Structure formats: C-alpha cells, structure tokens
C-alpha cells in the first residue's frame, strides 16, 4: 500500500489546519453559508436532510487494517456506530456535526486519510478494480497509476473549479471490474505491438440524467505521458465545457456536442502545444511508486488441507460461500474473498463499527492487513490463503458478514435515497431491502443478476448499468420507479432501456419478480440476464409486466 512520506504528512496537516480555520470563520459569521458551501464541499461535507454527511476518500478503494479500525473509531465517536460504503469506493457518515468535522479530519490524518475532493466540481476519488494486484487476468497492477493520479489531482490549482465533477477510473485487467466506460476519463492498461505497456484513454462516459458510454480518444499513450495527456483533456474541458446548465456540464456533453473526432483534435492540439517535460513520469518515478504495491508473495500456499476439503464436504453454507464470494488469485493456493455488505433486509453498503473492527482483525490475521472497497458497496480481502477460508468464513458468519450472494440478485446496489439525501425522489433503501428479501430464496436458481437502484436521476445507484435498473421518480408526491432492463457495467458495457411506464413503490417487488419469471422461462443454456434480454428484446418483459393492469 502507499505510505505517506514527509511531504504528504505535511500537506495533510496543512489541509486540516486550513479547514479548521474555515470552520472557525463560518461559525464566527465571517463566511456566509453560500461562501462556506464550496469550501466544505471540497472536504466532502454535505448538508443533507437531517444532518451533515461527511464523505471520506478511500483512494482507489484500498484500505489498511489500521485505517479501517480508525473508520470504526470515527463511526463510534462522531456518528451513530456505522458507516456507509459508496459506489465511488468511499465511505460516508450521515450523522455528523459541523463543529466536530475538523477533529474527524485530524483523526483521519493520523492514519493517512482525508476527505479532500470527495465532492465539489473537481476531481473525485480515482477508482479501480477491487481485485487489483491479486487478479489473475491483470496486465499490471493499476494502483501505482491511481496514486500518481491522486497526487497530481489533489488541490490542482487550475482544475478545482471545473464546470462539474470529474471522475477517473483505471483498470489493469481483461475483465473490467471498475465500470471504466461510465467515467469522465477511463483508462485501460494496454500492451502495444512493441510489447510496451501504456494506456488506452477513453473520455466522456457518465450516468446521471444523460447516460453515455465513454469513447476511445487515444488507443495508446505511454506511461511517461499519462499526466500530460490527462491535463490536456482537462484544459479543453475547463475552457469549453458548459457552465450555463448543471445538467449539461459534464464532459460527456462536450464530447457529444463536438463529436469524438473533433474532441480528439482539440486535445491532441493542446497536448502537442503544452510542456510535456514538466509533467513527464520518468521510469524511476513509476518504479518508486510501484514499490508501494509489491506483487503478492509468489510462493504458492498449500492448495487444500483436510480442514478446507472437509468444510466443503460437511458445510453446505461454506461451499456456497466459496462458490459465490471467492475469486481466483494470481498465486496458487490463494483466493480473493468478497465480504458481502448485503444481508437481505439490511441497508446495502452499511457496516457497523464492530464489523469494521472484525474485518480489520481478519485482514491482519489472514490477509496481510489489506482490505478493498468495491463499487458494488462490498468489502474485499484480496490476499487470503485457501487453507484459511473456513476460519475466515466462520468469523465473518458470526458478524453477519458471510452472506453468500456476490453477483446474485440480493447483492443490490442502492444509493442512500430519500432517507438521507435532499436530492432524492424516493426511498431506495426500503425498496432494496424488500427486493433482496423477496428474491434471496431463489437467487441461486436465478444466477448472476445485478439489480441497481437510484433514488433520483443523478444515478448514484448506477441504475442505467444494472441488468435490472430502478430509478425513483416522483409522481404527484408519490414514489414510483422506472424500470430499465439490459444494462451492464462490465467489458461489454451497455445502458439499460426503459421497459414501460413507472410502477408504484409497493409494486416494485412484484414487477421484478415478474421480470425474473420471464427471464427464467426464456433463457437458454448458460445465458445471463443481459444476454437473454438482448436476444428476446423488450416485448416479452413488457407484455408480462403490463398485461395484468
């Protein structure tokens, strides 16, 4: 993992002092709420329906056990004993007092964390594959580049007041587990014909009101030029992105209005004119950063022992969990464990302080002290020996963290919705809870199914790329849900299509059940939901959904 050096430590201390002074000026009346708002937003502090919400950056979703314990400490000391992991691989606390926020930031600084730019119209947390460094299908670990981007984009003087927020995702693997194509800039590590590793650069993806998949602006950029190329894109966006309409201000709208070819011309012209040397990444700088992310110990652990094999035989729950919640690891005898924060009936992504402590302890004992946060709002232990899986499973089970539903119907992504958020039209959490409870009994029969719920058009729950997407809309003060089908966030990314008129909140479970029934009836072979949907189209689903009404 990356560790702060004296520069980083000093910078974070300066930032905490600056923010403490901003809060002091606000409380003393020197700053109006309007003037204070962008300052607090630059530190991830939102004013929500009932209290302040503090969103803390978890750079590219990587946490140490010490950091996770400190998040538990924050939950206990300044919140109500739990936190909520988000689709940006961050964590947010929903019951925060303004005057206590400087102390929270100081507590974060103790463990090399911060809340910088977790909101506001600037760079947000750079995200990546939660299996980075452990995945078998990886060209290279993307995290050194994420950290280089994180540092370069931190309090960038030119790009702190962009037309709108800006999200970058990096993937180093063949399978896209980072939803790269729904980002403002997406980066895929690629090997060119000469065998050199660099990046394919995509631009202009995003969800929200106008969902668009990013397009390739450059097939290959050498590592050395990564930052200068990104800076060229940002300079074009900062000058020409729309600022007159909140809903047309993301870079995707600029790319759509110029067309990708002209956008490319503008960026290439800027990139050619700019000073490359100042931003160049020499090999030694990349090598130095890569040292923080050493490859896992290549010595294979014993593949099985009596305990593992016996547990598979005798504990059907363990076997199901291994099947659903573990993934193959680069090193033989190891596994990547996903810890589901989606027990049916509970709030997706919520985690109590006690659970955080337990996961931190397990990471220390079995997993080299490393934890990841996924954009599906789960946690990952990326370095577990297979022989330790039974012990890990039992310990997780005792803390209600062993739900075997990763990739299944009850692993629902949901935004916080109207229970917390001032923007929402609908309460997405109770819908997610009801759906998970209803679908869980037959989810193994259903197989892979991604349900994603957003409480409003801002699409924090990524509903456009759910196999089944649900969008909360307001109809004369009543909560309705618009249903989209056929979306996907993987390497074959696709946006879902609206199936028909929105349904009442209380009818959502019945509607999704009906959709699942149609899928089960029509699927052939090993077809996943999006494949069946693409083959049979909208009509069978629509007919079944609206026939009865």
């Amino acid at each position, binding site marked *: 993992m990356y560790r702060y*050096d004296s*520069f*980083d430590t*000093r*910078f974070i201390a*300066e*930032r905490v*002092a*600056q923010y403490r002074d*901003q809060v002091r*000026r606000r409380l003393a009346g*020197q700053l109006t709420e309007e*003037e204070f708002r*962008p*300052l607090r937003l630059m530190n991830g502090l939102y004013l929500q329906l009932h209290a302040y919400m503090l969103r803390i950056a978890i750079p590219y979703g990587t946490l140490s056990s010490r950091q996770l314990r400190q998040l538990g400490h924050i939950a206990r000391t300044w919140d109500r004993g739990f936190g909520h992991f988000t689709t940006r691989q961050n964590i947010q606390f929903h019951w925060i007092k303004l005057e206590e926020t400087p102390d929270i930031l100081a507590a974060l600084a103790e463990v090399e964390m911060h809340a910088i730019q977790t909101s506001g*119209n600037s760079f947000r947390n750079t995200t990546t594959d939660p299996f980075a460094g452990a995945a078998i299908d990886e060209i290279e670990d993307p995290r050194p580049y994420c950290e280089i981007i994180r*540092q*370069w*984009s*931190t*309090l*960038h*003087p*030119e*790009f*702190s*007041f*962009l037309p709108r927020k800006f999200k970058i995702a990096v993937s180093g693997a063949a399978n896209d587990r980072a939803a790269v194509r729904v980002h403002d800039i997406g980066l895929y590590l690629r090997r060119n014909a000469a065998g050199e590793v660099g990046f394919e650069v995509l631009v202009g993806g995003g969800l929200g009101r106008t969902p668009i998949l990013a397009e390739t602006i450059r097939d290959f950029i050498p590592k050395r030029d990564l930052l200068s190329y990104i800076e060229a894109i940002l*300079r074009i966006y*900062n*000058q020409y992105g729309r*600022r007159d309409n909140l809903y047309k201000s993301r870079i995707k709208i600029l790319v759509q209005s110029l067309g990708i070819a002209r956008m490319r011309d503008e960026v290439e012209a800027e990139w050619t*004119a*700019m*000073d490359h040397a*100042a*931003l160049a*990444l*020499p090999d*030694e*700088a990349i090598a*130095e950063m890569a040292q923080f992310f050493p490859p896992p110990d290549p010595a294979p652990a014993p593949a099985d022992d009596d305990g593992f094999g016996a547990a598979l035989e005798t504990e059907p729950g363990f076997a199901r969990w291994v099947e659903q919640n573990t993934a193959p690891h680069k090193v033989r005898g190891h596994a990547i464990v996903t810890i589901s924060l989606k027990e049916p009936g509970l709030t997706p992504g919520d985690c109590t302080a006690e659970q955080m402590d337990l996961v931190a302890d397990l990471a220390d004992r079995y997993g080299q002290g490393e934890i990841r946060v996924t954009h599906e709002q789960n946690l990952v232990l990326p370095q577990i020996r297979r022989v330790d899986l039974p012990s890990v499973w039992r310990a997780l089970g005792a803390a209600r963290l062993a739900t075997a539903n990763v990739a299944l119907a009850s692993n629902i992504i949901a935004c916080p919705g109207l229970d917390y958020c001032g923007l929402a039209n609908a309460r997405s959490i109770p819908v997610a809870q009801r759906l998970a409870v209803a679908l869980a009994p037959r989810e193994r029969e259903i197989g892979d199914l991604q349900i994603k719920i957003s409480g409003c058009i801002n699409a924090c729950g990524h509903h456009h790329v759910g196999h089944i997407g649900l969008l909360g809309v307001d109809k004369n003060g009543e909560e309705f849900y618009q249903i989209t089908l056929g979306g996907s966030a993987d390497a074959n990314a696709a946006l879902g299509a609206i199936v028909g008129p929105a349904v009442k909140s209380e009818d959502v479970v019945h509607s999704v059940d009906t959709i699942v029934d149609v899928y089960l009836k029509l699927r052939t072979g090993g077809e996943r939901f999006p494949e069946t949907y693409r083959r049979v189209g909208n009509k069978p689903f629509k007919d079944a959904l609206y026939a009865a009404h």
Partner: protein
Amino acid sequence: MPLIRNERFVMDTWRHLADDEGVPDAPRLSVSYVRWIEQRNALAMLPASLGVRLPNDVSPQKLAPDLGRLGLIVLTFPRFTDGRAYSQARLLRGRLGFAGELRAEGEVLRDQLLFMRRCGFDAFTVSERAVAEDWLAAFREFDVFYQPAEDREMPVLRRRLEAARRHFTVA
C-alpha cells in the same frame, strides 16, 4: 476596492477606461477586450502603458501578437465557481510568456487566492474585508504542492526524485 499585488496591499495606479470614455493623459490605461480590438492601432500609439480586460470566454491566443505591448491583463471570475480564467492565466504565463501584471477580478475570495497565484496571477482585486480579515495569510497555508504550475514551486514528485538522486550521489 483593495488591490493585492505580490502579496501586499497596494494602490491601484491603473486607470480603467469604460468603453465610451475618452482617453485621458495617464501613464497606465486599461481597456476592455472589445475596445482593444476596435482601437488597437490608435491605442498602441499612446505613450502610456496599456492593459486589456479579457472576458473568460475569449482565448488568450487572441492577445498573443500584442503581449509585448501590454503591461497588464485583467482576467475575470464572474462567479468564484467559474474557473475558466485559471486556464487562461496558465496559458498566458506558461505558454505565451506574458511577463506583465496578471490581475484577477470579479468574485475573488480568500480561499481561491493560492490557486490563482499558482496559475500565474500576481495581482488580485478583492473586497474591503480582505484587509481586516488578513487574506494575505491565505498565500502561506500550504508549502507542499503536487503539480507543476506557473509559480516556481517544485512539485512533490520532483522533490522526491531530487532527494533520491542526492542520496544516490552522496552514497
């Protein structure tokens, strides 16, 4: 309104002409970009130092041929959230090599001063509160910077590399 230049409060010695105002006999005059385009040749003949107030939707490239004749360029922040002038400033300083005074006006607030200075601004038209609230302290809130910009600050990446090289040389 108070003016900060090179991190001190100073008097503004420039006359800023309205578009319909006659040209007075003054040592330093600024005009709008529109007036500059219309009266460029006549204005350039004046003995005075000249400044142009450039809107934030005009490319600084348009002033490229004139930069040697200009002692001041004023860039504007209609709202502090409208960050276009940051890019204009970097282009003027870094790309086009403008060496005169680069002044920020409009909604110029305390907590943006350091960003502006890093992008190449050296002068700031600020509100009356700036004096009483000691806005100059804002320039000293950070001394660690992660990216190259138009100031002389060495970004962290270079500082690390230099430190590593020094270490290597000594060893």
